[in-house]
């Protein structure tokens, strides 16, 4: 089966979605090797197909699956002494209220520091934040400054929090542990700049919820409304 350019353009999406038989898939693949326009189309459409699985409702497999898998990987026999366990991040490492207070203090300094931060942003790594629900219009950027051992979370178009609430920033580790990072309210123009000590090592997500004023919560009580994937 040989496909011309137009046929491939027509079949590419179906092929990426796994909806073509082997012959058609192969015909698409063969044409792709020779056609730059189709390669560009393929790249664009593939980037979407790759994230479709994330639409699946989140479910955890039972713990036995892990045990069975590791036993099978070891060839069916796993001496107890070498059972591989990756422990979750220990709770005591999460900052106490004191650290939250420190982060709030840092926030107060944010304005004063902002002027020279832009000078330091060049070596930084940045991640976009996007909002949903009430914060759908808000956007932000998480910038890690390795040299300063500091992370800056800059948010704009943030509506005022509901009465009696403040915004609280959380760091979520890859194993799902959540720790508070800062409490903040936006300025009159809906902007906030929050400084977080450290470089987000082991953190997968930075998220914002609304929590009771003035000092927020120890663990989140609201739904995440604004977040960035950072790891």
């Amino acid at each position, binding site marked *: 089966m040989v496909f011309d350019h137009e046929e491939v*353009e*027509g*079949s*590419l*999406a*179906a092929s*990426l*979605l*796994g*909806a*073509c038989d082997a012959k058609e898939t192969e015909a698409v693949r063969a044409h792709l090797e020779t056609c730059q326009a189709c390669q560009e189309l393929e790249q*664009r*459409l593939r*980037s*979407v197909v*790759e*994230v*479709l*699985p*994330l*639409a*699946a*409702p*989140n*479910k*955890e*497999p039972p713990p036995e*699956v*892990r045990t069975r*898998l*590791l036993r*099978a*990987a070891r060839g069916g026999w796993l001496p107890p002494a070498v059972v*591989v366990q*990756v*422990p*979750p*991040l220990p709770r005591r490492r999460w900052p106490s209220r004191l650290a939250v207070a420190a982060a709030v203090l840092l926030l107060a300094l944010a304005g004063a520091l902002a002027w020279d931060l832009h000078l330091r942003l060049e070596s930084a790594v*940045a*991640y*976009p934040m*996007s909002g*949903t629900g009430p914060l759908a219009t808000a*956007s932000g950027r998480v910038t890690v400054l390795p040299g300063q051992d500091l992370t800056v979370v800059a948010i704009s178009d943030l509506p005022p929090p509901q009465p009696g609430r403040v915004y609280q920033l*959380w760091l*979520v*580790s*890859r*194993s*799902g542990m*959540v720790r508070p990072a800062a409490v903040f309210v936006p300025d009159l123009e809906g902007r906030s700049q929050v400084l977080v000590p450290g470089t987000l*090592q*082991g953190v997968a*997500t930075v998220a914002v919820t609304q929590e009771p004023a003035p000092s927020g919560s120890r*663990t*989140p009580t609201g739904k*995440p409304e604004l*977040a*960035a*994937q950072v790891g």
Partner: protein
Amino acid sequence: MARLMGGETDLDIAKALAAGDVTGLAWLYDRYSSLAYSVALRILGDPGRAEDVVQDTFLKLWHGADRFDAGRGSLRTWVITSVRNRSIDYLRGRNAHARKEQEIPLEAEAVGPGSDPWREVAHSLERNLILEALASLPAEQRQAVELAYFGGYFHREIAEMFQVPLSTIKGRMRLALEKLHSYLRAKGYFDGL
């Protein structure tokens, strides 16, 4: 120490896997098993089968770990593409007949009420955005994508279901993916990838 605290990077994991270190498999599993299981369950609709497919997929990735190429995509993509394909093979093979009678959920599903949002938070924002993008599509385009990707149906089968020409279904798939791309890009989704 950082390795024990979940701070390992995808590159650390890939290196450990390539070196045949089972710790790499444990890291890979701890990071991506819930996503893999969610995808398998979404496709298969049966927890027992989804568990089998997840275990098989990770085992297969473990045995062929050298085939992961960091230059060609992320570990996450590697894992979820594998688990999706394996789930679909399962549907198309052993279960191909029963599948016809199975009800395929066509509507984008919301995050389940009563679940602990913080168990899910690492993916929930990303998922919500993708669900929003899917929900923004005309129903016939969304159905074409979901039936193919999650339902494992071939384009011909979908064309028969809707009693439309094959080219119409292919066109819906193409339009759907283009619109999803524009939607996600406008939200800055691809900026950080």
